[in-house]
């Protein structure tokens, strides 16, 4: 089993519903976010292209955060989901510094926090909150090992990229382009 997410940059309108849904579902402290929207405008005026991406932890296969954690608080869960165990985290900040995506933050309660792929929802057979609320249905979630999952199907059909694969992290959030 390998959980992954695919996000369609051609459909995303940058409404930030995913951000709000995540904050509500996961009780993210005010002023923080586990996912966020990035808008990249590229080109020479007036020939401009815009790409909108909803970004989050990439739940990498080769996670620098898991590697550098001195206590084992950062670890892999089923399906390759990268999680933090709050009562094992000492708040040293090593994993925050180690993430090339800057997907982690220090929770006001002291431990490190990040996207969990809504593992509590997946275990109940539901979709992650961000995927569930997306009004343009631009996000696909599922098991890469299952050829019939939404994410496997869309990755077969479409061209995609990952963010900074050259960092060697083997990320598992795919952007359809």
């Amino acid at each position, binding site marked *: 089993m390998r959980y992954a997410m695919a996000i369609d940059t051609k459909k995303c309108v940058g409404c930030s519903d995913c951000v709000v849904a995540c904050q509500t579902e996961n009780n993210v402290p005010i*002023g923080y976010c586990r996912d966020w929207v990035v808008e990249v405008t590229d080109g020479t005026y007036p020939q401009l292209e815009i790409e909108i991406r909803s970004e989050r932890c990439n739940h990498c296969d080769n996670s620098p955060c898991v590697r550098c954690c001195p206590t084992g608080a950062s670890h892999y869960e089923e399906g390759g989901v990268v999680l933090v165990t709050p009562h094992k985290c000492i708040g040293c900040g090593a994993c925050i510094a180690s993430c090339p995506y800057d997907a982690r933050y220090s929770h006001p309660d002291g431990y490190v926090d990040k996207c969990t792929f809504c593992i509590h929802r997946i275990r109940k057979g539901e979709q992650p909150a961000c995927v569930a609320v997306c009004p343009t249905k631009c996000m696909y979630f599922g098991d890469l090992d299952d050829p019939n999952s939404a994410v496997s199907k869309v990755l077969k059909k479409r061209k995609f990229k990952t963010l900074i694969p050259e960092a060697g992290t083997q990320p598992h959030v795919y952007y359809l382009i």
Partner: protein
Amino acid sequence: MREEIITSGRMNPHIDPHLEIWHWHIPLYLFLGGLAAGILFFAGLYTILGKEEKFAGAVRRAPVIVPFLLVIGLGALFLDLRHKLYFWQLYTTIKLQSPMSWGAWTLMGITPLSFVWAAIHIREFFPKWKWKFGFLEELEKFFVQQKQVLAWIMVILSVILGIYTGILFSAFNARPLWNTSILGPLFLTSGLSAGAAVIILFSRTHHERISLAKIDVMLIGIELFLIVHMFMGFLASTQVQIDAANLFLGGPYTAPFWGFVVVMGMLLPAVLEFLELRKFKIPVIIPVVLVLFGSLMLRFIIAYAGQMSRWLY
């Protein structure tokens, strides 16, 4: 003109607009840890070589300050933790891939060792010192007998401690400036140089001072060589590492790095120590303070500049 404009909706405290997760605690600790490693390395080395009498400053006197350095350093590390009450989790596991885990366990070994070493040499400073309890006298006798063993452990642990202060940074490929294996040897050399400088302060014989000044000049030479290599490596690497190097080659850290670290902290003390070796009269405190200042600034600048270097936006 082709342009790229990136707008991000993320504004997490200490993460955006650029990483600021580590403040003064970490570089201060890295400086104190490196300095402690330097002093203990020379103390152990001269004991093993059987030159305790000739190098009494290195073996018996300077190591007395090491427990203080390490305790202050550990205090700074503790203050840096944001989930402080769980710090003991460090000692429930050994993570071979995590430099921080290595460091925590090394400190667990070298801190008590530094206390023992300082205790068996306390009569250097208090000749009439008496332990209050009999068992402490016995313990002291035991450790004095085992001094060679202690010295060996100390040399090995101090090299690990010195090099780990650099590897702590270089293991992070997310921060291109830190992601160079030169940092380990560079911080080790800088720690040894700072250690040698402090020993010069504690030394009472001309011979010892001259020997350590020679070693220090040599170490500074190695540091300069490593710094040049670090930048050569960056400039021949990927765009993110070229950008990282440019923080020091025209960017905001240019003046502090070349001015404070290289000129004031390395070239100037090296010249002063060289002149001293040529029989010029120079107050010994000046090069020592400059070396310590350079060593501290090196860690502060690398720590802060590293957090500014990034991959994405």
